[in-house]
């Protein structure tokens, strides 16, 4: 093993970090939209859609991300070919973003639903007692509290997705790991490449964790335990 190679590889790999982060941001954005919609469908038990949502969540929870990635990569072109759209030459990044977005969507939906159900019943009653309608109650009272409660789980889920992005190279995406593989091919120093990659992933995860826990503290200022005013 050659430590100096790690120093050498580091800049080469980190210059592809933005692709990894791009996948993550796209996945979280898609996931948030899907998650909120699915959560609402589940909360209000919208007939028909509720069953579909259940199957969707169960499937995403029931299969490895790697398999999901292959299904989208091979399945989406087939599906779209039926309506004469050709995506067989599309950037693999697109498939990755869709897969991770769908995956995030399922977990976010359950996180949001759990948090909404976790808001005390008294909050609903208080909202009704001052004359709010259902929508006002949901938007002004329940969701703001639920989203704050959901935040730690949400943060965990995002960090999980970041780690999952390490598998995107299997369908030929040129992210950090993809770039690492080309480095391995040219340098034949696989171990050093993976050590460098691990250091970068660990660094990013630590940064995300720090960032999340800071925003959590800001968000949850009303949740107590902080600064109990003793005046």
């Amino acid at each position, binding site marked *: *093993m050659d430590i100096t190679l790690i120093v050498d590889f580091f800049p080469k790999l980190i210059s592809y970090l933005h692709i990894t982060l791009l996948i993550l941001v796209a996945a979280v954005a898609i996931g948030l939209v899907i998650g909120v919609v699915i959560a609402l469908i589940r909360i209000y038990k919208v007939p028909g859609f509720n069953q579909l949502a259940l199957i969707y969540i169960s499937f995403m929870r*029931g299969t490895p991300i790697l*398999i999901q990635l292959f299904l989208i990569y091979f*399945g989406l072109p087939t599906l779209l070919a039926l309506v004469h759209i050709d995506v067989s030459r599309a950037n693999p990044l697109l498939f990755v973003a869709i897969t991770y977005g769908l995956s995030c969507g399922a977990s976010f939906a359950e996180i949001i639903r759990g948090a909404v159900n976790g808001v005390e019943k008294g909050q609903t009653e208080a909202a009704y007692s001052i004359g709010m309608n259902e929508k006002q109650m949901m938007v002004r009272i329940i969701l703001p509290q639920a989203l704050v409660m959901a935040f730690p789980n949400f943060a965990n889920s995002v960090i999980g997705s970041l*780690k999952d992005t390490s*598998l995107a190279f299997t369908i030929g995406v040129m992210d950090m790991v993809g770039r690492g593989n080309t480095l391995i091919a040219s340098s034949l120093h696989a*171990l050093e490449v*993976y050590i460098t990659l691990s250091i970068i992933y660990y660094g990013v995860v630590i940064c995300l964790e720090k960032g999340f826990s800071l925003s959590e503290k800001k968000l949850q200022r009303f949740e107590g335990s902080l600064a109990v005013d003793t005046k």
Partner: protein
Amino acid sequence: MQIDIPFIFTALTEIFKALPLTMIITLVPLMIGFLIGIGITLIRIRKVKGIYRLANFYVSFLRGTPALMHIMLIYLGLPLLIDKMAETFHWSIQSTSIPILLFVLMALSLTAGAYMSEIIRAGILAVDQGQLEAAESIGMTGFQAMRRIVFPQAIAISLPNLCNIFIGFLHTSSIAFIVSQKELTGAANIVASNNLKFLEAYIAAALIYWGLTIISEKVTALLEKRVTVYNRGGVA
């Protein structure tokens, strides 16, 4: 391109044969990881000097990096180490004679240890402090109280998390295909490229994983009912 539905069934039976290997790659790391987890938890709860920080770093690093990295680091790094040692101490083993599976199992055991320690710790901390005090008040030693009172309750509390980690590792085991293990995903890959029917093969694999997940969720629900009888409250 059309989907060949009958082939999904053919693929299903073919891929299903790889289930034992998937189970090995899932369960062995979880069992070893459980032991590692207990060790790490004790070190962290008792704040054992010196190794306490090391234990923290172990958990943080393994939870902070993708499992793929763990597999690759062990798979690529350990043979170098072994060969070096063999050379220095004149051992007769060679890294090339060690099956890759063993490296995978080692790597994932380390991964599992980190996640398990978090689950066990959360479980132990969730047990009411009063339980420990009550155990000590009737004269149990700290170890007895831990083993007989706290631990069983912690396991019961942790059941949902243990189910989740099982499902998580069932899915993580699919990564082993990247180092050419012929578990479910590896088998699906072979069936796919041999027949050039990729989508069908992966649909079949997905169905198997999905089925396994649903079964383990059902089993957990049953177990939970049995284990938490005492928790139900009210008059039976």
